[in-house]
């Protein structure tokens, strides 16, 4: 079955093409469009499941070797290139022709992503058929979503860097198209442009990295590149070599795509798109492409210790930065957006400390609970008639039960409460941060990560409290509020005809025809539960968010489960082992249970492996850590490694509990507390509320400077260049004036003089013939007659004259 994985990207593409090209022309009904879209994704999901099963489980699994469709001929030569040097380590200056093919690769990493993308995508598609009901651009939405699925699948299933890049750009494009779905809204148009341009900044780094890869390794295929890369020397902290450059470029790309610290600005603005878009693209799939890329190229990253540190620190910074901002936001989708940025920071933290499998594990669990929460938020918004401000919600628990309970599951998951999925992955991340031997400052990463986790629990509890619990504030609020004001402003400026029939721009309140829009009293809409198409996917995702973490039960529970990573190939760490390079053995492990297996020559003894936990120690050059390792420190105190782990688990649970408790305190028990503390921490509150003024800074430093230089260039062009051209034109005009004067006065003067002279000469002569005397005219007639006769006798007259004159 895995032979047919090339169908997986193709089916959503076909569905998108049908919907996009024919949906409007042939006037497909919503059912048909939705059916085509959901059907194509469902089919792709089923094929993915079958393929992954046949690849990794069942009779003769192909696992752990990667399977390329080119092995069975389902590929084509895409870019035949020129000669590149292929060094293969020691040989020098061998040249081969670069050949980039289009083939799909099925290996543990791409298998997970295939399942996540198609599975979570399927839930979101089904949700979207209900959410986008009534939109005039229904076909366009599903066309773009199908296109996005295609691009994302190409990204994760591609067998070389260039296919990844194609998918990378494709998802960026679809993100632009979908954020700007309500293209008649200025806000959405700006946000889509911002997303695309910020992505492009990252893509620049990515492209440079690809050039470096091709130049260094002479190929772009993963198998070729990684086989060569694994034999390079590790570049330790302070040494910067070619692999560090490549890793830097790759990481810049990842920052752009996954909204890490300097390039995160687009993600919150991207909430201007429809909620299913936010769920699919900006929670579950596109933003995780950076993680995919980092994990795919973990060989290169592991060879560059400096870059690993950079990754970890950037992830850490992003996590805490976004978490602080998320505490003060009032728009439900913005809170979730900053939560996404923060959780992405966690994932990069995991990658940075060397726990690549755990970062993918967190990608998976995050996909579940974040998509769930976004869809739940979409359900809330839909039920609240497109009100997004949490200050005007409250007490929705009894109005929207399905939404509430599913959201509840997601909330517990993100806070990291056992046994929900978020607990397992987050706990592993923090433990790996504390115990890492890959980079220094692991303890700092752990500390900041823990604080960020506390903040996460706090603001998610705040969200739950403001939305679902407490007083029903929507009953009190009349007109006003951000949504209504923006709506009214647009109406007053004449931008949007706010008619219930017309497509209401974005998530704005819809009104009945003739209803007055504006800051006057408008009646309250009672919230209602969403239709089945919308809450069924919520239930599915809630189930996944609850039990999805069991694929990653960590070694700390060994006494309970009986193995470090229980579940065989179903355990995510075991499953991903062939993909993560092992710096001890300097090889890609061939997988199996219990970490190091006898298949490869492993110099490290088993106990050392156990002590080193899930990630093996780096090269022996610094096996004894020169820097502080928190886990080892605690170990030395407790003298029991397992207890150390248990301690860290308990600490993370406690901090989650603290976060929840504070949230309940602030927003359920004493609702006056938030304002008091906001007053006390006024500077911090302002910084958080204004998103640390990052957008303003970019505007001042970059945008305005670029526009100033554009103005300067324009001034140069219009004054100097155009001045020269106009000068030439003026000179030409002057010359033509002179020539015209010469012609008019000089040449015409001569002509007129000649004409007058002739007239004076000839006129009297000719006039003399007009006597008016008839007989003169008769005389002339006779003369003419004579001449005729003479001509008649010309010869004879000549003879006669001759005779007369000569005499005869």
């Amino acid at each position, binding site marked *: 079955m895995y032979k047919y994985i090339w169908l997986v990207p193709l089916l959503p593409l076909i569905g998108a093409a049908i919907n996009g090209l024919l949906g409007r022309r042939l006037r497909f009904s919503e059912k048909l469009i939705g059916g085509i879209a959901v059907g194509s994704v469902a089919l792709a999901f089923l094929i993915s499941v079958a393929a992954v099963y046949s690849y990794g489980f069942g009779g003769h699994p192909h696992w752990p070797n990667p399977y390329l469709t080119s092995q069975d001929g389902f590929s084509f030569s895409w870019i035949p290139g020129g000669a590149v040097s292929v060094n293969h380590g020691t040989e020098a200056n061998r040249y081969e022709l670069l050949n980039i093919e289009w083939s799909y690769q099925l290996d543990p990493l791409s298998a997970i992503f295939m399942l996540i993308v198609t599975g979570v995508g399927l839930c979101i598609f089904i949700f979207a058929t209900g959410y986008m009901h009534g939109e005039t651009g229904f076909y366009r939405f599903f066309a773009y979503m199908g296109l996005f699925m295609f691009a994302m699948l190409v990204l994760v299933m591609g067998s070389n860097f260039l296919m990844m890049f194609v998918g990378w750009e494709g998802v960026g494009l679809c993100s632009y198209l979908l954020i700007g779905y309500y293209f008649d809204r200025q806000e959405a148009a700006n946000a889509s442009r911002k997303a695309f341009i910020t992505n492009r900044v990252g893509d620049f780094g990515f492209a440079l990295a690809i050039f470096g890869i091709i130049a260094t390794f002479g190929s772009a295929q993963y198998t070729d590149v990684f086989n060569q890369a694994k034999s390079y020397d590790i570049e330790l902290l302070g040494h910067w070599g070619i692999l560090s450059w490549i890793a830097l470029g790759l990481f810049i790309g990842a920052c752009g795509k996954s909204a890490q610290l300097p390039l995160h600005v687009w993600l919150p603005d991207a909430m201007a798109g429809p909620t299913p878009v936010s769920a699919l693209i900006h929670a579950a799939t596109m933003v995780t492409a950076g993680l995919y890329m980092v994990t795919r190229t973990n060989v290169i990253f592991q060879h560059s210790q400096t870059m690993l540190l950079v990754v970890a620190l950037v992830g850490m910074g992003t996590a805490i930065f976004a978490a602080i901002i998320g505490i003060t936001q009032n728009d439900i989708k913005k809170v979730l957006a900053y939560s996404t940025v923060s959780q992405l920071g966690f994932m990069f933290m995991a990658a940075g400390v060397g726990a690549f499998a755990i970062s993918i594990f967190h990608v998976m669990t995050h996909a579940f609970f974040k998509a769930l929460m976004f869809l739940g938020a979409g359900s809330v918004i839909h039920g609240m008639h497109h009100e997004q401000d949490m200050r005007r919600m409250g007490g929705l628990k009894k109005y929207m039960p399905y939404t509430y309970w599913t959201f509840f599951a997601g909330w517990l998951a993100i806070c990291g409460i056992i046994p929900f999925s978020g607990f397992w992955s987050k706990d592993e991340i923090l433990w790996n941060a504390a115990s890492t031997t890959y980079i220094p400052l692991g303890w700092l990463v752990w500390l900041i990560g823990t604080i960020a986790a506390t903040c996460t629990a706090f603001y998610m509890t705040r969200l739950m409290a403001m939305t679902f619990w407490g007083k029903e504030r929507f009953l009190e609020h009349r007109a006003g509020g951000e949504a209504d004001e923006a709506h009214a402003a647009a109406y007053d400026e004449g931008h949007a005809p706010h008619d219930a029939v017309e497509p209401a721009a974005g998530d704005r309140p819809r009104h009945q025809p003739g209803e007055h829009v504006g800051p006057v009293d408008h009646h309250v809409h009672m919230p209602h539960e969403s239709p089945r198409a919308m809450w069924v996917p919520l239930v599915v995702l809630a189930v996944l968010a609850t039990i999805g973490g069991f694929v990653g039960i960590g070694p700390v529970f060994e006494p309970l489960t009986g193995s470090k990573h229980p579940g065989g190939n179903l355990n995510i760490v075991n499953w991903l082992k062939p993909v993560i390079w092992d710096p001890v053995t300097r090889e890609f492990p061939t997988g199996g249970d219990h970490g190091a297996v006898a298949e490869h020559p492993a110099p490290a003894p088993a106990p050392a492996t156990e002590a080193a936990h899930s990630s093996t120690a780096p090269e022996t050059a610094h096996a004894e850590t020169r820097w502080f390792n928190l886990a080892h420190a605690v170990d030395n105190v407790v003298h029991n490694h397992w207890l150390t782990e248990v301690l860290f688990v308990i600490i993370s649970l406690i901090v989650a509990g603290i976060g929840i408790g504070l949230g309940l305190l602030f927003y359920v028990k004493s609702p006056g507390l938030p304002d008091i503390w906001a007053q006390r921490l006024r500077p911090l509150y302002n910084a958080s509320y204004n998103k640390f003024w990052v957008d303003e800074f970019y505007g001042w430093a970059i945008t305005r400077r670029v526009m100033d230089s554009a103005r300067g260039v324009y001034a140069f062009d219009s004054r100097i260049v155009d001045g020269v051209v106009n000068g030439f034109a003026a000179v030409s005009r002057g010359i033509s004036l002179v020539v015209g004067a010469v012609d008019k006065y000089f040449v015409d003067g001569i002509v007129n003089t000649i004409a007058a002279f002739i007239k004076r000469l000839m006129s009297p002569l000719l006039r003399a013939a007009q006597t008016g005397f008839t*007989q*003169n005219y008769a*005389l002339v007639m*006779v*003369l003419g007659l*004579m001449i005729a006769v*003479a001509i008649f*006798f010309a010869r004879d007259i000549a003879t006669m004259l001759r005779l007369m004159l000569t005499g005869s």
Partner: protein
Amino acid sequence: MRLSGYEALFFWIFALAAIFAGLLTVMARNAVHSALFLISSLVSVAALFVLAGAEFIAGVQILVYVGGVMVLFLFVIMLVNVGAEEKGRDEIFNKQKQVAASLIFCFLLVAGVLYAVSEGYKGMQARNTTPPEQIAAQQAQRDRSLAVGATRTSRITDDTEQVGSSLYRYAALPFEIASVLLLVAIIGSVMLARTLKQEVSADDVDPETLQEEKALDPELAQLEPRSE
């Protein structure tokens, strides 16, 4: 067409008469004298026609030309009242320059014409194979076949018969066109000779001109057209 005997005699008489009359036509002081001299010239030429065997044309000439055209001339002379000349005060000839040039040209012209006639006749004679006597004998024979007149002094020639049969058969179209021409001439002459008063009565005057003429002659206003 050799004429002989009395025919030759009469030829000379009438020829000289014609030339002489023509000369006097041109040189007479009185217009009426000119007309009368022209009449005599025309009659002499008619006699020459008879001698040339074209009696019908001779008759036509006298009837139409003399009887019609010359009478018309005389009427017009009467109308335009040229009595002043009789007293001999006005010049009848043009200025000397004009007369001199005319005479020179005429002289040259007559020289050319006479030369042409002589050369042409020589050529015709050369081409003509039958001698003149034979032609005369044939013509005499043809004449003998004609019917004899009632008085038995001459024969009835068939000239009229020939002219008539040709005119109404082969020349029928020119004949009709000629009749139209005469019609046009009648109408034209009537129109040309109308007086202003007649034109006003017939409402045939341009309004602007009418205004001017009314200013000169108030009676015209009463003649305003009888427009029905």
